Structures are given as C-alpha cells and as structure tokens.
C-alpha cells in the first residue's frame, strides 16, 4: 500500500466488532467473544505499527519536515456557511500516529488481560463489546481532522467511559460513579463547544491543518490587534476561546477542579481503569492542546498556554499530596495519573515552538507515551493483586512478593519508571519536562521537582506495602496471575524498559521538524531529579519495608493537613454543597414550580375551558329530528341572507 488510504480501517474494525459483539452478546459468550474482540484489536495493532513504520521511517519525512496528510472521507459534510463546513476526514501527522501506537498497544494488552481477569463474569461479551466501542472512539478521536469531529468522538469516548465505569451496574456506587464521570465531562464539554464555535467563527474553519497554518494565525493575531475592545480581563476573545477549549480538555483529563470523577471512576473493572483512565481517555485533553499547539503558542503571545502550564502544575501538586495519604490502591493510582497528566500539561505549557525550544512539547508527548505504558502496567498489576486478594485496600495486603513474583517484578519496574530512575523510560521523559520547565519559570520547575519526589515516595509506599511490609496470613494463598494476564504484564514491562531509548525528538516536535536532544548527564538538573527520586524511595523504604511506627507518627505530625489530604481536600463535598444548596434550591426548584403550575396550569386551563363549553352546548344534540330540521332551515336562511346582503 503506497498511500495511507487504508487508514480508515483502523477505527472501523473495532466499530464493526462492537456492533457484532453487541448484537450477538446473548449467543456468543465467553471465551469466543473475547477471542473475537482480541482478534480485532490484533488487526488494529498490526495496522497501527505498520502505519507508524511507514510514516516515521518511510514516507513521512519530506524535506526535513514531517508532512501532515489529510485523508478526506467526505468534504463538507455539514455546511454552516458557504465557507465554514464540517468535513469527515483523518489527519496523519506525528502525534496522531504516535497516539495510534499508544492506543492500540494498550488496548490490545487490556484485551488479552481481560481474557483472564473477566473470566466467569456474566457480562463477558458485553465487556468486550464496550471495549471495542471505546477503542473505536479513541482511535477516531486521535485521527480526527477537524474540531467538530474531535468533539463528536470526544462525546463518544465519554459515553464508552460511562458504560464501562458502570459495568457492574448492580452496584449503586458504580452507577453513581459513572453518572458523575459523564456529567462532569459533559459540563466541561459545554465550554469546549462554545470554544469550538468561537474558533470556527473567527478562524473561518474547523479543520486543524487550516487553523494551525500561518495564514490563519496571522489573520487572527491581526484581528486581535485591531479589536482591542473585544477582550475580557485583558485577554482577547480568541484567547478565551482557546481557554474554553482547554477547559473541555481539563474535564476529560481530570485537571483541578474538574478532577472529581477520576477517583470515583475506579469503581469500574481494573482493565477499564488501565485502558481508559490511565493511558488513553484521560490524555485526550493533552492531545487536544497538542493538536492546537501552534494556535496556543502564537495567539496573543501564548497567553492561553500560560493558563495550561499553571493548571497542569497545580493539578500535579494537588494530586500528589492526596496520593500520599490514600489507602485504596486504585485511588492512589488514580491520583498518580492525575498528577502525571498535570506534568504533561505543564510540559506543553512551558514549551517553545521551533527546534530545541519545542522541548516541552516533545517531552510532554514523550511522557504521554511512556506514562501510558507504565501506568497501564501498574493498573493491570493492581488488578491481578485485587483479583488474588479480593480487596482493594492496602491493609489487607502485604508480603505478596513470595506468592506473586511476576506481579511483583513488573510492578517494581513500573514504579521505578514512574519515579524517574534511569534507565527506565520515565526518567527520560520526566527529565526532559523538568529541563523545559527550568528554562521557562523556576517556580514551575520547583513544583515539578517536588512532585517528582512525592511521586517516588507514594509509589514505593504502594510497592512496599503490597509486596513486602508484613506477612499477612491469607485465607487461601494468592496465586500469581494466569498466563494471559501475565503476558500483558510482561509485554508492558518490556515496553516500559525499552521505550526510554527512543530518541523521541527525531519524530515528534511542535514545528514538525525533528531536532536533536539528549540528556546532559552531568548537568545539576538531571542529578537533582535522580537524587530527589532516590530520597523519596529511601523514605518509603524506611517507613514501609517493615512494619514500623513511622507512618502514624508522620501522619500525627501533619495533623490537620493530613486529614484534609486524606479526604481529598473536601472538593467533592464543596461540589455537592454548591449543586444542592445553591443550584437545586435556588434555581431548579423555582423553575420546576413555574413549569408545574404556570405552564401545566395553562394547559389544564385550556382543557377545563373546553370541557366547560362542551358541557353547555351538548344540549344542541337533542336527538329530536325536528330540532335538527329547524337548525337546517335556519342555516339555509342565514346563508341566503348573507349571500343577498353581503355580495
């Protein structure tokens, strides 16, 4: 295949698999439906890797610059005006191909893993159908060529997430969590849509390639210069549009303050958490900002980008503090995800554009890639552990190292990666982020630095407490993961170790021109980040390798702060208060009253009036023939009079 025309097959296969599995869910059960779903994903996996090979190594590089290829399926699907239209098309450029690799790899691993994890679950086929739906939506999202298409797939991803989080629909907590996830992201999407419409209006296009082009950007910048009045709080309308789009991304990527759905989303099955809430859906926000990065960088001197950096840094810090205190292993991992995505946003925010200055962009994308691998691995191991121990809480675990060696070693590899220890992949990506932050703003660098230490600490707290710590007596000795689960774990562990050595800057860069970057091994930044990671690991080792008094003492020392952090800083309670006391009582109830009494009352009034009139005039139908004849004759007379006198 010479051109990229086959690319629409990549999202199409999971869609067909979803429809097929969905319709035959009652007849085709475990394990055939699992094998079918996995087979579909295998096809997607192969196609994605082939595309990556073709793009990065064979065709993509033209004149030293990666070209963006648009494969149009339908030009002008819906027209708003003569010039403004929504197309259906696929864009192939470095980040979309990279995301293809990420999504297909993680999804494929999750499919294989679920063959073991969801064994004997009654809704097995339904699960695989939903997984295929999600994969289709996510692939569509990364391949979308214009803002509206991305919005459509954005919503589809949200729906798939809703279906998968609420998979155990008999559990009320799961149902509540899925509703919460959907509603919070939907709320964020309201802002997203407004942003899209504004950009479409001012930029006269929805298409990414057109919007990111120099002509559009200079047009918008000159518009801003000419319309200084059209601004709010010192930022122009167009920057606000970009910020609104970012808010949509915040919802999907669980940035503060729209993060509340992510910890609750852990109610879903663990493979779902691995796929959606670690590796793919939550990075949709990062992907969106990366997609529109030329606009973010160039419009009004990158004002919107500063917002991105600050939000990212703050979320990273916020989540890390909370993660230090959580007892449920999936919650720790959820907050860890939020923190790492904060890193990615921060990376994009501090980035420049051309060449080496675009380090932040490249590092953010690289971190996305590596994070997907090791975070999915962490979740899958957690799933294996939960499966073996039948509990999510760390207090029920301990000493699993001797029972579950594969899980233990792979978890260790992933924990080292996320802490940023060389030669694991997390080190390379995280370090490049910190380097970019140092160039930009020392405060943000410091935040990132601290968070790196905290990350190492809570990760190893988790590792030690699950696998070492104490010798818990288990009712039935936990077995290590079965073959299909272990395969995924080992594959992802290998990826985690290997990916670090990819020279990412050769492929991904903001200006589409590859540049050269390498780690300066001697620089104080690099040494400093390794040191702080080791400090974190050391502290965790001291406190948790054996059972000690230290954790309680430290918690007591921090007192109120500890309590606040453990309760996730009461953000959920705040939201509940605002919605219940303020929105429900002050806004919704009066509107409901109005609807019930005024509008319905008016309708009822119409009905009652009609009935009343009917009651009065029903006597006309007397049944007497002569009365009818009378009406007849009078009618004729009346008509004659009218005809004669009103001609």
């Amino acid at each position, binding site marked *: 295949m010479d051109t990229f025309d086959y690319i629409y097959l990549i999202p199409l296969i999971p869609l067909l698999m979803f429809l097929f599995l969905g319709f035959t869910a009652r007849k085709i059960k475990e394990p055939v439906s699992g094998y079918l779903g996995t087979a579909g994903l295998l096809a997607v996996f192969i196609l994605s890797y082939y595309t990556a090979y073709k793009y990065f190594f064979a065709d993509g590089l033209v004149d030293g610059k990666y070209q963006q290829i648009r494969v149009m399926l339908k030009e002008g699907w819906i027209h708003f005006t003569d010039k403004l239209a929504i197309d259906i098309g696929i864009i192939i450029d470095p980040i979309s191909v990279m995301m293809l690799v990420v999504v297909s790899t993680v999804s494929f691993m999750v499919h294989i893993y679920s063959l073991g994890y969801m064994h004997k679950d009654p809704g097995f086929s339904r699960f695989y159908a939903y997984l295929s739906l999600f994969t289709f939506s996510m692939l569509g999202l990364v391949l979308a060529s214009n803002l509206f298409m991305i919005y459509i797939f954005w919503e589809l991803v949200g729906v798939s997430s809703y279906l998968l989080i609420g998979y155990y629909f008999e559990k009320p907590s799961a149902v509540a969590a899925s509703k919460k996830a959907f509603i919070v992201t939907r709320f964020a999407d309201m802002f997203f849509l407004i942003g899209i419409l504004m950009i479409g209006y001012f930029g006269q296009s929805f298409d990414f390639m057109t919007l990111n082009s120099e002509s559009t950007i200079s047009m918008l910048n000159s518009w801003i210069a000419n319309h200084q009045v059209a601004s709010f709080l010192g930022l122009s309308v167009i920057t606000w549009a970009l910020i609104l789009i970012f808010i949509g991304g915040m919802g999907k990527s669980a940035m503060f303050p729209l993060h509340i759905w992510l910890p609750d989303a852990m109610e879903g099955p663990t493979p779902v958490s691995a796929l959606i809430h670690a590796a793919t859906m939550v990075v949709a926000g990062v992907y969106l900002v990366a997609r529109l990065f030329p606009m973010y960088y160039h419009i009004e001197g990158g004002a919107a980008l500063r917002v991105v950096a600050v939000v990212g840094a703050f979320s990273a810090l916020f989540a890390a503090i909370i993660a230090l205190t959580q007892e449920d292993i999936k919650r720790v991992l959820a907050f860890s995800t939020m923190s790492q995505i904060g890193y990615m946003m921060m990376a994009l925010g501090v980035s420049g554009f051309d060449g080496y200055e675009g380090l932040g962009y490249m590092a953010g994308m690289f971190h996305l890639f590596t994070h997907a691998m090791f975070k999915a691995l962490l979740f899958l191991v957690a799933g294996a552990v939960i499966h073996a121990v039948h509990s999510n809480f760390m207090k029920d675990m301990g000493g699993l190292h001797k029972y579950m060696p594969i899980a233990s070693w792979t978890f260790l590899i992933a924990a080292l990666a996320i802490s940023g220890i060389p030669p694991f992949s997390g080190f390379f990506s995280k370090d490049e982020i910190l380097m970019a932050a140092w160039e930009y703003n020392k405060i943000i660098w410091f935040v990132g630095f601290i968070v790196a230490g905290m990350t190492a600490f809570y990760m190893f707290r988790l590792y030690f407490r699950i696998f070492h710590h104490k010798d818990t007596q288990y009712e039935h000795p936990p077995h290590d993961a079965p073959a299909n689960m272990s395969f995924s774990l080992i594959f992802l562990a290998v990826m985690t170790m290997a990916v670090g050595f990819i020279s990412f800057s050769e492929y991904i860069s903001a200006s589409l021109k590859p540049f050269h970057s390498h780690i300066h091994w001697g620089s104080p930044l690099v040494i400093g980040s390794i040191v702080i990671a080791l400090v974190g690991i050391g502290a965790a080792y001291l406190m948790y390798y054996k059972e000690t008094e230290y954790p309680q003492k430290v918690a007591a020392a921090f007192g109120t702060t500890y309590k606040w952090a453990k309760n996730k800083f009461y953000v959920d309670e705040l939201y509940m208060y605002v919605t219940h006391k303020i929105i429900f009582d002050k806004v919704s109830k009066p509107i409901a009253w109005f609807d019930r009494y005024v509008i319905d009352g008016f309708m009822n009034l119409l009905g009652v009036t009609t009935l009343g009139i009917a009651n009065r005039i029903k006597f006309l139908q007397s049944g007497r023939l002569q009365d009818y004849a009378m009406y007849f004759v009078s009618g*004729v*007379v009346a008509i004659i009079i009218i005809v004669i006198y009103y001609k």
Partner: protein
Amino acid sequence: MGAVQLSVYAGGIMVLFIYAVLLTDQIGKPLRDTSWKRKLLAGIISMGAAALSIYAIVTFQGINKTFEPTVTRVEDIGEKLLSYEPGGFVLPFEVISILLLAAMIGAIVIAKAKKLVNQEKN
C-alpha cells in the same frame, strides 16, 4: 300530468298512509301537542324564509314573461322518455325503475315482522 298525479297519489300513496295509520294503531289515543315556543319559532323561521324567497323571486330580472300557450302532448313526453338522442331520458328512466325496485326491497326488509321470521325458522 294531473291525471298522473291523481292516480299515483290518491291511489297509491294515500292508501299507503292509511295502511300505516291503521297498522300503528294510534287512532284512539290523544296526541301530545308541541309547545307554543316551538310553534312560534317554527312559524317565524318558515315565514321569514318564505318572505325572503318571494322577495328573491320578485326582484329577479328576467322571468317576467307571461305565458305563451304551448301545449305539450303526452306522446311527446313518452317519446322523450325512451329516446337515445341527446336530450333523451332513457337512462334516468331505467335508473328510476331500478330505484323503485330497490325501494320495494328495502321496504319489505325493514318492515318485516320479526315474529314471523322466528316462526318461519322454527
């Protein structure tokens, strides 16, 4: 014409009426009278309508002719009834005969005595 009228009416229809009156066995009983309100209303309406119609007739232009004596012969009417040329009435003639047949059948069906039917069935 008059002869036709006489024969049909005095002979047929009046006999029918008398049969009906006989059969409905109401000769001895007194009839309820209509309320005077109804009579008044009916009177007003019919008088009013009559007045209107006569007014319309009188003020209509073009029918103020007096009679020119032409005599129509019954033979002419008979011929007309059976002629096929345009202006002939053979079709309505046939249709009327079928209509009379239908009316006869209808009258028999409606007025059939139920008891008789039951007895016949038994």
